[in-house]
């Protein structure tokens, strides 16, 4: 066993996830590798269905039982993949926790929010009921829920979407985890609330020195909130690097396409948006080669032959494309105008 770098919190190596779908087994995630240091923030972007949530859930060990996980996930050098559920339970909510996309459904409608926030405390820290309640009030106060002492015995339906998302954040933060995974925490909320929630998460992460993985398909959210980012497509990482770097240089044609497709505020009226033609491939019948091959304007035969390797295009900036020479030349300077 190699000595783990003490600063490295989580190390994912060649992660693969195979799921049973109605259309047969599908490789939802393949060959995903990354490391995350303590206090570092990582963003995950990509179109719907590209495997962002599956990657996150495999870190949490919460994939469906039928899922087959290959590769390795190490937390502080300890292997997590294939860890027995009982042991995993001791980590979840304690050292790794997660905020989910839908604040409306992520809370149990039958329990008070106080009960739900206190649950990880009672379980992992063995707090007494009174202690846990006190702590829960403090937590709810911290996430900016107005009047927490009074509202701790209210039920989820009595809160608005933004307030509920705050409650789930309080839950995720209860045991001060080392790693926080936020899976599209604001997709369901409107812009003004989204801003508040992202501010809140950023503050908390900073204040407690947590590591964070933030998942989104909104490039703007990623740009403003993480230090490093990965772009996923068809179950693989197609580009990864420091956020600034990726935004500045955008190596992969998909990343570029994604960026161009967004309507921009203040753009000249009557211009056409540039779209990516074609649709996302079905996971069950992914091509052998580059998953983006069918939609890529730069595709050549070699792209379809085998999964392209990761190419380093800058410091810590890698792109899974064999045509970076062309793609990056085309986009230089086109972005920041």
């Amino acid at each position, binding site marked *: 066993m190699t000595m783990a770098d003490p600063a490295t919190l989580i190390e994912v190596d060649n992660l693969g996830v195979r799921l049973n779908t109605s259309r047969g087994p599908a490789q939802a995630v393949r060959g995903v590798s990354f490391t995350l240091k303590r206090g570092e923030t990582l963003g995950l972007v990509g179109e719907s269905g590209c495997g962002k949530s599956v990657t996150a859930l495999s870190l949490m060990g919460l994939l469906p039982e039928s899922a087959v996980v290959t590769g390795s996930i190490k937390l502080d050098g300890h292997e997590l993949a294939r860890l027995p559920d009982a042991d995993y339970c001791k980590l979840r909510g304690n050292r790794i926790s997660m905020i989910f996309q839908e604040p409306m459904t992520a809370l149990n409608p039958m329990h008070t929010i106080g009960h739900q926030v206190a649950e990880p405390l009672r379980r992992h820290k063995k707090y007494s009921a009174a202690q846990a309640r006190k702590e829960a009030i403090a937590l709810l106060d911290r996430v900016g829920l107005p009047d927490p002492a009074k509202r701790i015995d209210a039920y989820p339906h009595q809160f608005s979407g933004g307030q509920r998302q705050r409650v789930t954040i309080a839950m995720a933060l209860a045991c001060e985890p080392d790693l926080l995974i936020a899976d599209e925490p604001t997709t369901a909320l409107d812009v003004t609330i989204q801003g508040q929630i992202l501010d809140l998460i950023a503050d908390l992460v900073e204040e407690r020195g947590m590591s964070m993985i933030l998942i989104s398909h909104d490039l703007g959210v990623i*740009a403003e909130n993480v230090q490093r980012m990965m772009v996923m497509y068809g179950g693989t990482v197609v580009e990864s690097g420091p956020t600034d770097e990726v935004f500045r240089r955008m190596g992969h044609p998909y990343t570029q396409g994604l960026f161009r497709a*967004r309507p921009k505020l203040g753009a000249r009226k009557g211009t056409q948006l540039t779209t990516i033609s074609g649709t*996302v491939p079905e996971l069950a019948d992914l091509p052998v080669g580059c998953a983006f091959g069918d939609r890529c304007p730069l595709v050549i035969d070699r792209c379809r032959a085998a999964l392209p390797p990761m190419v380093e295009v800058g410091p810590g900036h890698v792109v899974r494309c064999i045509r970076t020479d062309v793609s990056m030349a085309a986009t230089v300077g086109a972005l920041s105008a």
Partner: protein
Amino acid sequence: MTAAPLLDVKDLEQRYTLPRESLLRPPGQVRALNGVSVQVQAGKSLGIVGESGSGKSTFARVVMALERPTAGEVTLLGRDLNRISPEELRRARRDFQMVFQDPYGSLDPRQTIARIVAEPLTVLDDADRTTFRARVAAVLKQVGLRDADMDKYPHEFSGGQRQRIAIARALITQPKLIVADEPVSALDVSVQAQVLNLMQDLQEQFGLSYILISHDLAVVDYLCDEVAVMYLGRVVEQGRPEDLFERCAHPYTRALLDAVPRARAGGGRRRRGAQAIASQSAAATGCPYVVRCPLGDQHCREVPPLLRRVGEEHLAACHKAEAVMALPQAAVEG
């Protein structure tokens, strides 16, 4: 302002009565629309933005005559939709159609595309059934689908394709106005671009008018000639997109603009002020935004601001509009 507008909405109000909880107290009310007046000229598009619950969808439903408003009138091509007989209304519907948010939920999963798209025709008495298929084929072509798709079912299409089908359905009667309630919110970035392009193409081709509802300012900016910002059932600011987004005159519009994350290198974190959410039922005096407004003062709390002209084709309901316009504007992408 020479020609009569295509759509003229005057002082629209919509109140919903909440279920009565006690015998003694009167039932609560939600004022979903609180005196909205807008006009849409033929061939021009109106965008409506605003936060969740501000009454955007209610506005769409009332304009589509799916609900009877509590007060106010909706005049389309000179006909007051709430005064004409149900018979006439049914016939009038060929002139205004609707596109919904959810591409998965707005198509009946048990009907073929041909039936779905032909639906608005089946209601018109003068429509000739034998020509339905030909008309469906033609309109599918316009939205970029093929004849072969006619006998398929919705589940055989992707989200973007479905939204095209929904648009085809709206187009088939050759309407003058299409009301689109968040037509791209549920779509992926890349698919969203396809649909927006299509909508723009169609407008150019047929001279349609859209009422486009969205909470994404960029989408509205992209497609519309005029934008109305709604807050708590009122229009708080209205004008050309460039005026609005470059010289916004209402603090709420400003808050909205600030909240949009900017996708660009070196963005870094921007702080946004905490914002309370005002209640809709409280019949507050003064400006409804005052609780969230950084500029609010005693005057704002007491006197409700009226929508007033602050620039050429630029209206705002704020006592301090000029002050807001003078503030340095948030940098705009592009």
